[in-house]
C-alpha cells in the first residue's frame, strides 16, 4: 500500500462538548489540494483493524455519532485525490462522554437565575407590603370607570372581547384580570357585560371570574351566565359575530383586551362607527398600530401586564413588573457601560493598546454565547 503522510495534513479528535455523549468531534486541517473525498476510519482500543466510519464533508469537520461512551478510539483519515491519497492519524486514544452542563448556554442560565430571583424576591416583598411597590398609573385605567359609567348612563351594555388566544397566553391572562375590574364596576353600576368567546376554556374561566366579581360587588343575582357565551372557532366567523353583536346591542363601552390577529381592525372599525368608547390592549405587536389609530385608549404590549398588576394589586403581578423593570434597568446599564467602555477601548486601541478592545470583544462574545 502506498500512501503519503504529508506535513500539515492533520486530524484532531475530541469529545464533542456540551452533549449527551455518544459523539466525537473530528476536525481535519490543511486538506490537500484536489481532494475529492475524505474517508474516516476508527480503531477501538483492543481491536486490531480500523473500521470505516463514513465520510467527512469538504469543510473538514464532522461528528462521529456511532461511538460508544467510555470506549477509547484512534482515528485515521484518508484524503483521496485524483491519482493518490494522503493519510493523517490521531496519536492518543479518545473517548466520548456525556456532560452535565451545556456551557454554551451559561449566559441564558445566568440571566434566568438573576431575573427569576429578582421576580421571586419582589413577589415576597409585595406580599408583605403591597402598598410599598410603586406602579405608574396608566391613563387607560382611569378610562375604565369613565367608560363603564357613561355607558350605564346611556342605558347601554358593556362589551368585552378577550381575544383569540388560549389560556396559556400572557395577554389572555392579563385580560382576565382586567375583566375582573370591569365586572366589578359593571355590577356596582347595575349594568350588563357581554363577553363573546373564541376559546372554550377561556369561556369557563371568564364565567367564574365574572361570577366572583359580581358577588364581591354584592350583586350575585345580577350576573347572567348566558352573557358569557361561545361564538365560534373560526377567525372571521368570530369577527362577523362580534360585529353583529355591536350593531344589535350598541354597547356604550367596548374592551378589546387579549391577543388579536388580523380581525382586530374589523372589530375596532365597527366599534368606532357605533360611537362607543373603545379601550384596547394587546400583546400582539402587529395589531397594535390598528388599535392605536382607531381606539380611544390603548394598552401597548407590556402596559397590559402593568395594568393588570396595578388594578389587582396582587403581589404576584406587582413583583413580576418590578422584576421586569429591574431587568430593563440592567440591560440599559449594560449597553450604557458598553458605550463608555467601547469608546475608551477604541481610543486606547488607536493609541496602540489593543488589550481593552480585546476585553470588549470577549464580553460581547460571552453574551452572544447564549445563542449557541
Amino acid at each position, binding site marked *: 500500500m502506498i500512501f503519503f503522510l504529508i506535513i500539515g495534513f492533520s486530524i484532531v479528535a475530541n469529545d464533542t462538548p456540551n452533549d449527551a455523549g455518544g459523539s466525537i468531534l473530528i476536525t481535519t486541517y490543511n486538506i490537500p489540494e484536489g481532494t475529492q473525498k475524505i474517508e474516516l476510519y476508527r480503531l477501538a482500543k483492543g481491536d486490531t483493524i480500523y473500521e470505516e466510519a463514513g465520510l467527512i464533508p469538504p469543510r473538514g469537520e464532522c461528528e462521529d455519532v456511532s461511538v460508544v461512551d467510555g470506549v477509547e478510539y484512534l482515528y485515521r483519515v484518508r484524503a483521496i485525490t485524483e491519482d493518490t491519497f494522503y493519510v493523517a492519524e490521531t496519536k492518543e486514544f479518545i473517548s466520548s462522554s456525556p456532560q452535565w452542563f451545556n456551557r454554551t448556554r451559561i449566559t441564558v442560565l445566568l440571566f434566568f437565575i438573576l431575573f427569576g430571583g429578582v421576580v421571586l424576591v419582589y413577589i415576597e416583598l409585595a406580599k408583605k407590603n403591597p402598598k410599598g411597590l410603586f406602579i405608574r398609573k396608566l391613563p387607560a385605567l382611569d378610562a375604565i370607570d369613565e367608560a363603564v359609567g357613561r355607558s350605564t348612563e346611556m342605558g347601554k351594555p358593556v362589551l368585552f372581547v378577550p381575544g383569540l388566544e388560549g389560556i396559556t397566553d400572557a395577554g389572555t391572562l392579563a385580560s382576565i384580570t382586567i375583566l375582573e375590574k370591569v365586572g366589578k364596576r359593571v355590577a356596582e353600576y347595575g349594568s350588563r357585560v357581554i363577553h363573546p368567546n373564541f376559546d372554550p376554556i377561556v369561556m369557563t374561566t371568564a364565567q367564574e371570574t365574572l361570577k366572583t366579581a359580581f358577588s364581591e360587588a354584592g350583586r350575585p343575582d345580577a350576573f347572567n351566565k348566558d352573557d358569557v357565551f361561545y361564538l365560534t372557532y373560526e377567525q372571521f366567523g368570530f369577527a362577523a359575530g362580534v360585529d353583529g353583536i355591536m350593531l344589535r346591542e350598541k354597547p356604550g363601552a367596548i374592551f378589546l383586551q387579549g391577543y388579536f390577529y388580523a380581525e382586530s381592525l374589523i372589530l375596532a372599525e365597527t366599534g368606532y362607527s357605533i360611537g362607543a368608547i373603545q379601550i384596547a390592549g394587546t400583546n400582539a405587536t402587529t395589531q397594535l*398600530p390598528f388599535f*392605536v389609530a382607531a381606539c380611544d385608549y390603548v394598552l401597548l*404590549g407590556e402596559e397590559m401586564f402593568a395594568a393588570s398588576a396595578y388594578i389587582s394589586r396582587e403581589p404576584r403581578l406587582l413583583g413580576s413588573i418590578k422584576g421586569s423593570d429591574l431587568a430593563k434597568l440592567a440591560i440599559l446599564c449594560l449597553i450604557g457601560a458598553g458605550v463608555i467602555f467601547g469608546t475608551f477601548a477604541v481610543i486606547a486601541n488607536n493609541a496602540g493598546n489593543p488589550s481593552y478592545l480585546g476585553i470588549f470583544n470577549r464580553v460581547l462574545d460571552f453574551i452572544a454565547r447564549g445563542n449557541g
Partner: protein
Amino acid sequence: MSISTSIWIWIAALLTLMIYSFLYKDNPFYRLAEHIFMGLSLGYTLVILWYDYIIPRIYQPLFFSPHQWSLIFPILLGMMTFGIFSKKYNWLIKYPLAFYVSAFAAIQIPVMLRSWILKQVEASFLTPDKFSSVFNSINAILIFVGLVTTLIYFYFSKKREHGFGAAATVGIVFIMVAFGAAFGYTVMARISLLIGRMQFLIQDWLGIM
C-alpha cells in the same frame, strides 16, 4: 377574451363572489359560503389532526415496534380534557391543562431569553464597525437612542418626572414611528391578497388579458 369552461374555476369564482357580496350587505349568499367554509375548514382540521398527529405520534409509535408504551400517559392525560363536557367531572381537565400550560411555559423561557432578549441586547451594543461612515454613525446612534428610550417608556415603577419623563416621551415617538411602519406594510399585504383574488377572477375566470 375567453371565459373559463372549467366547472371548478366556476365554483371557485362563484364562491369568491358570494363572499364579496357581504360588502354590500349581510345576505343569504354570504351566509351560505361562510358556512360551507366553516364546515370545510373544520373537516380539514380533523384530517390534519389525523394525518399529522394521530398516525405519526400515537398510532405508529404505539402499535409498531419499538413500542413506546410511555405514550399511554399523554394519551390518558389528553382524554381527561373531555371532562370539560361534564359538570361532575369538569375538574378532570385541570390535569392535562396543568401539564400543557407548564410545558408551554417552560419551553418558552429559553427561547424568549435567547432570541428575544440576549440576541437583541447583543445586537444593540455599539461596536466600532458600526461607525464606518458619518451616515452609518448617525443611524447607529438613532437605533441606540430608539432602544434606550423605548425601554424607559416601558419602565413602570418610577414616576415620570424631569429627564426620565422626557426620555419616555422620546420613546413613545419612536414607538409610534415603528407602529406606523408596521401599519404601512400590513396594509400593503392586505391589498396584495385582494389583487391576487381579482387576478383570479379577471384572468382565470373571465379570461380578460
